[in-house]
């Protein structure tokens, strides 16, 4: 097991390396650079040319890549080209936790809705509630995120005034527990919005897995031995039904970090998703590269975690 984990982690290194090479080539082959959209009749293009020269944007691609990778190895992601003088690590730091929190809240909403309903639907297939849940789930999948977000803002923030409409905190001067509560309060609407789409997926998986397991031989045996339905469900069925959910969550782990661009935008929730889009549009290469590296690492780690959890949930799965 430990050998397996270490081997997997060692494989990450070349994978991440190739990821950065590919992203670097792709990012650089897009036309333009951070200065190409700054059109100002009062500013001579020469000024931007000097900036390009100073930042090394005129050097050949391999030279630029080697410069970038060697400073990354020393733990320096460099400076943003657009946010004049800001360290990339500082820019990402500011938003990293926002994104993680939002992702967790969304996942939490997804799970507390999807798992119980999935189980119920499986136990009572083709019941009215099953149909309702299925319909509701697909509706959730079908409604675009931004639309649901806007509706949520108009209903719950603007008209009912239950939740704040925008941002992560209402006021910079609060701290401690009060700040914690305030932040949670701000996360509920975007969290639900973000979690909505996942709900249907998890629900369907849960339903079909539980149904599957309920029909299997060992469940029949357990019932034959006189176990109650409840015990059958919680002791035997759930554990086996959780495997695909864990796979999904493993993938989700990467998605969690890459952020939810549209939800972040609608709720003006400063996270990595909007940073990624902005920096791509602005050709802010150092930020794009750093984010890709982080996203890549998280997706790899997420998959690894999923694999490890398999063997925890299902002892038949072993890694050597």
């Amino acid at each position, binding site marked *: 097991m430990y050998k397996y984990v270490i081997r997997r982690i060692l494989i990450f290194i070349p994978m991440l390396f190739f990821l950065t090479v590919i992203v670097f080539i792709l990012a650089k082959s*897009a*036309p*333009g*650079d951070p200065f*190409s959209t*700054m059109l*100002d*009749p009062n*500013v*001579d*293009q020469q*000024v*931007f040319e*000097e*900036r390009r020269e*100073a930042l090394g944007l005129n050097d050949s691609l391999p030279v630029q890549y080697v410069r970038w990778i060697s400073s990354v190895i020393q733990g320096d992601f460099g*400076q943003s080209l*657009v*946010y*004049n*003088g*800001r*360290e990339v690590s500082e820019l990402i730091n*500011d938003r990293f936790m926002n994104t993680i929190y939002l992702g*967790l809240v969304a996942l*939490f909403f997804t*799970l*507390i809705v999807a798992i119980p309903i999935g189980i119920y639907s499986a136990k009572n297939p083709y019941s009215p509630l099953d149909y309702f849940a299925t319909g509701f789930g697909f509706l959730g999948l079908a409604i675009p995120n*931004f639309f649901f977000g*806007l509706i949520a*803002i*108009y209903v719950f*923030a*603007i008209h009912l*005034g*239950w*939740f*704040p*409409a*925008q*941002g*992560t*905190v*209402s*006021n*910079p*001067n609060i701290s401690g527990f009060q700040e914690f*509560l*305030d932040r*949670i*309060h701000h996360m*509920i609407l975007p969290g639900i919005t973000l979690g909505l789409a996942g709900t249907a997926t998890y629900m369907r998986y849960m339903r079909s897995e539980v149904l599957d397991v309920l029909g299997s031989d060992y469940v029949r045996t357990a019932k034959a031995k006189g176990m109650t339905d409840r015990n059958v469900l919680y002791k035997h069925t759930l554990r086996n039904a959780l495997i695909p959910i864990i796979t999904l969550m493993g993938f989700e782990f990467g998605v969690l970090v890459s952020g939810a661009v549209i939800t972040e*935008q*609608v*709720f*003006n929730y*400063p996270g990595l998703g909007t940073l990624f889009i902005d920096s791509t549009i602005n*050709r802010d290469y150092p930020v794009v590269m750093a984010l890709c590296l982080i996203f890549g690492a998280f997706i790899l780690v997420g998959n690894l975690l999923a694999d490890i959890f398999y063997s*925890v949930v299902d*002892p038949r799965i072993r890694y050597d």
Partner: protein
Amino acid sequence: MKKKFWLISLMMVMVAFLLVACNTGEQSTQSDGQDKSDTTETPSDNGGDSGEDHEDSSDDGPVKGGTIVGAMHTAPSGVFNPIFYSETYEANILDFTHEALVGQNNSLEFIPELAYDWEINDDQTAITFFLEEGVKWHDGEAFTADDVVFTYQTIADPNYTEAGGIRTEYVTPLKGYQEYVNGETDEFEGVVAEDDYTVTFYFEEPNVNPLYYASFPIIPEHKFAGVDVMDMPSHPATLDPGEVVGTGPFVFTDMVEREQYILTANEDYWQGRPYLDQIIWRIVDQSVMTGLLETGEIDFIADPEGVAPADYETVKGFGNIEIIEQTDFGYQLMGFKLNYRTPEDAEAGKINPDNWVENPDVADQKVRQAIAHAINRPGLVQGLLYGRGSVINAPIAQQFWAYTEDVPSYDYDPETAARMLDEAGYVDADGDGWRDFPNGDEWVLDLAYPTGNKLRERSAPVLEENLEAVGINVNLHPPKEFSAYLDDIFYNDTPDKKVDLYLLGWSLSSGDPDPSGLWNIEAQYNISRWNNAESDALIQKALQTPEAFDQDFRIDVYHEWQNLFATDLPAVLLYAQNKIYAFNDRLRGVDPLPYSFINNPHLWWVTDGK
């Protein structure tokens, strides 16, 4: 056993989340009450005012206290230093915190700000400013002429552009700039402090508009003294609230990055303490802005985006919102790509009119005029802008003394357009339904446009339709992302890009109407590559000293130039959009300038201040 532990801990994590969720429930009911009281205040406030006439209730006079919230949809990138910022979003904050020697009034004349008076010498090569005494920086230090010298000297520094600064236009005409920026001397002769409260700007050559160069915000020397210019953009006095120091009516005290930017009244402001206690900028997604304006959660929507034309009626319907609509500085155009550059010149970044390759597709002046007649510009203003804009015919901002309506205008008239094309010989020669070149060759106009500006995006198919209606075969390119688009029309505008018509918008400076930056033959931003010697001569003439010291002389020349532009037509000006400012009617004392909502904010006050 070990495995069970995993499962249990997983469950505990989930239970912990449930507990958190319970807490949030309580919290939401608490602030629910708060929000309610906020929203009930606004309508009652509105009812008391009886309609939109706010003058009658202002007999009580301004009240001290209160906080207002403004909204913009994009966060500043975080460089709160006038000499290094490059976006309008930072300007929204710096306009409250920093001041220049001179400001501008409603007629765009320069008026005293930190300088109460000035003297210009006869040949306009030197201008001496007399500074207000007793002005203090936000941290209590005195503002003196040395700060002025320091500001300009920093912009003139040899490393300034390398450090990321782009404001060199304010120092290039100053005396000795070239020597200083090239490192030939350590003495910058351009701006000299005579004493603590007198400072003189010297120009290399007689200058037509010397006050413009003194309209740049001043930064505090004591904060940056000894800091290498390369380190200034990352200095705390550039980045951190509380450290950013100006002389303006409000102090930038706090922020939640990308969410809120808090400006607090400057108690010692030299023109008197502002009425308001605080101004908070909140970053709000555009789609919910008007909703929050209605509930009173935000008080004003101003630059750079304002209220969208489509939302005008909705916002007006709220009842508690004042709207100010004024012409924006700028226009959208459909340019004719008159000349291309050779690949060699484009590669080298050279503008060499001798090498330009003429584009036969739009080379005929008569054809360009016909195209202008074919375009339904009033229709664009009505349809896209809901009437919140105007059709213009000359490329100088309408607010300027230099602007004139008296130029050839091109009414929407497809019949005239068709007739003019017939006369020019552009008729359908091969019977395919489209007009051809006079010599019978196939004539296709390629129209390119970028994504980004939604209104502009929507105008492209309309233009295609208008032109096709008079028999012109238009090849509408798929829209490109702005960088890629600029590569086609601007950075590498070679013949193989096959662009005949391009869409673009320009925001114009409010400082001076001189159009040379956009329309001079060798101007980089002359994207049409308009090669008209007469135009260059006129633009030059308008700046010719000493005649140009007389504004009437410049007016005449600019009128002549605008006529030439409208006749030769390197571009069809499609529309000038109106800027729509909206604010809650509890906010009083708002008096926007033609180019900015923020004017004398120390005189803003709210009716419910305490």
